[in-house]
């Protein structure tokens, strides 16, 4: 008997009472979506900025390696998407279009279509996500309703920059992935 059959047979042999699968209510949300989303992103150590603040951020830091995949920001791009993600190791700023954001926790949904390469939002030094103000949902239940049966090969909720507290529980931003997250709401 293969291990597959072995495991399945062992489970089948166990007498079990059925237990119904509950329906999940969507639950209310007391706060204004935009206000709550901004607070959530800040709590996750990200920032919500305007388009002109983004331009300042790039200018002040004199970033030269910028890859843009967001709508309407093409002029900021200094390099195209490579075919191999390893070539992104020196990337300073990635600008990506987000699908939608979640007010209760600041999570932003991204799919293969937004990312170009799956490594992009992780390997870049700084991450910028462009999000439409009307693309905000209240909580994770509404988020999964919105995702529905979407067929992307890879989907991702990003809620903040890479962080760790593994050394004496002191929060450090920029563990392996992006050292900062900025969200441009428009």
């Amino acid at each position, binding site marked *: 008997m*293969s*291990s*597959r059959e072995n*495991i*399945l047979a*062992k*489970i089948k*042999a*166990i007498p*079990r009472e059925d*237990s*119904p*699968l*509950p329906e*999940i*209510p969507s*639950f209310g949300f007391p706060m204004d979506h935009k206000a709550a989303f901004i607070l*959530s992103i800040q709590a*996750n150590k990200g920032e919500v900025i305007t388009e002109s603040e983004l331009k300042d951020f790039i200018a002040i830091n004199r970033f030269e390696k910028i890859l843009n995949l967001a709508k309407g920001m093409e002029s900021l791009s200094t390099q195209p998407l490579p075919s191999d*993600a*390893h070539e992104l*190791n020196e990337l300073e700023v990635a600008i990506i279009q987000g699908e939608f954001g979640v007010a*209760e*926790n600041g*999570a932003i949904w991204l799919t293969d279509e937004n990312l170009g*390469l*799956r*490594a992009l939002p*992780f*390997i870049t030094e700084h991450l910028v996500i462009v999000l439409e103000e009307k693309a905000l949902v209240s*909580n*994770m*239940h509404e*988020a*999964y309703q919105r995702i529905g*049966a979407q*067929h992307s*090969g*890879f*989907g*991702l*909720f*990003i*809620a903040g*920059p*890479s*962080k*760790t*507290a*593994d*050394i*004496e*529980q*002191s929060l*450090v931003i*920029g*563990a*392996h*992935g*992006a050292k900062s997250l900025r969200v441009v709401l428009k």
Partner: protein
Amino acid sequence: MSHPTKASEFLQDAAKAKWHDETLWFVRDKRDTISKTIPEWEQLRELASQIKDNVLANLDQYLIQFEEKARANGIQVHWAKDAEEHNQIVLSILQKHHCKAIVKSKSILTEECHLNPFLENNGVEVVDTDLGERIVQFLNQPPSHIVLPAIHLKKRDISELFHEKLHTEKGNEDPAYLTHAARLHLREKFLGAKVAITGVNFGVAETGEFVVCTNEGNADMGVHLADVHIACMGIEKIIPRRKDLGVFLRLLARSATGQPITNYNSHFRSPAQGKEIHIVLVDNGRTDQLAREKFKNSLKCIRCGACMNTCPIYRRSGGYSYGSVVPGPIGSILSPGLDVKKYSTLPFASTLCGSCTDVCPVKINIHEQLYEWRQEITKAQGTNAKSISMKIANGIFAVPFAYKVTGSMMRGALKILPDSITYSGLNTWGKQRDLPESPKETFKDWYKKNR
């Protein structure tokens, strides 16, 4: 070695033990604070519990469905009945790709299967990429906590270790500096690895996708730069529907560290072009546990670690005192299922205060199962009053109905008891193996006077 013996080793460094206790309590406190911001918190716990009950009742069906969907999405699915088979499957994938070095993100399952030493014995370099796990890997230690692997170490220890391994400045203990050094070191490993291994937080039967949650982004750095992704998944990690993720992702990070969600929550459905994803579905004792009516609920665990952070014994005895891969309250009901003799003292490493049960996001009746294991173990060891577990079982802590009544009182007291009491030999899990002489005034009286 028994839990009390190892706990006394931990308590030898009193200052560190106190720090450990207070730090984990702080994490527990953060969990409390954030859970109170969600009016439907208790309803979410109930939903999570019901979903997991449904999973356990239909596990075979969901596994079949998950496999079918995952295969249709281009994922290669493997089944392993035990740790040995799991390790062999992983090795054979590595050999097929002539791979001699891998990166691995946090996976308690691969700890359980002792994958690292197995691969190393077969000539494969394994690099754990979670910062805490990399730290303990450098020390040749297992993680001491399932969410906070290096919580037993102080920054001085890590500074010395990094000075030796990564040539950081001697004496520089700044966490940001040390983390940055690890970032540079691990970046190289990420760029060089052809195969990356991850654990799995949730596998969705409906879609065949699986979800991995991290704050560091290390799982994703590994898998998206590698050609091959191997995901190791215990069969109990299945959930029925995609929308169930809404419930679990709301509960997981809030329960674990008091944050609203982990910063990266990756949903893997099919491999990127030209790449491979493998899933290894592992039993390794889970079907045995499912067959134990009294203990099967332990399989509902989503590994948030909240029961450890809240446990007065865990906080004061450290993860290593348990001697099991999963420590703390949940480890004390899972481990005896794997080897009841080896782990016979673990169900006694509890006050039965019930705090673990109170915080558990999937409502596992942890403290009741601890009590059940005590009965099983006591039965198995006969009525010889001299056996260690009997001695403890006959003590005051073995009266669960009494503790059900006084549970909340006890919880309060554990916070307000002065250090001189909790850290002295009076603590059973501390220096002494036997229960202490009854104090002159009863706890009840003491509490009345001092509240």
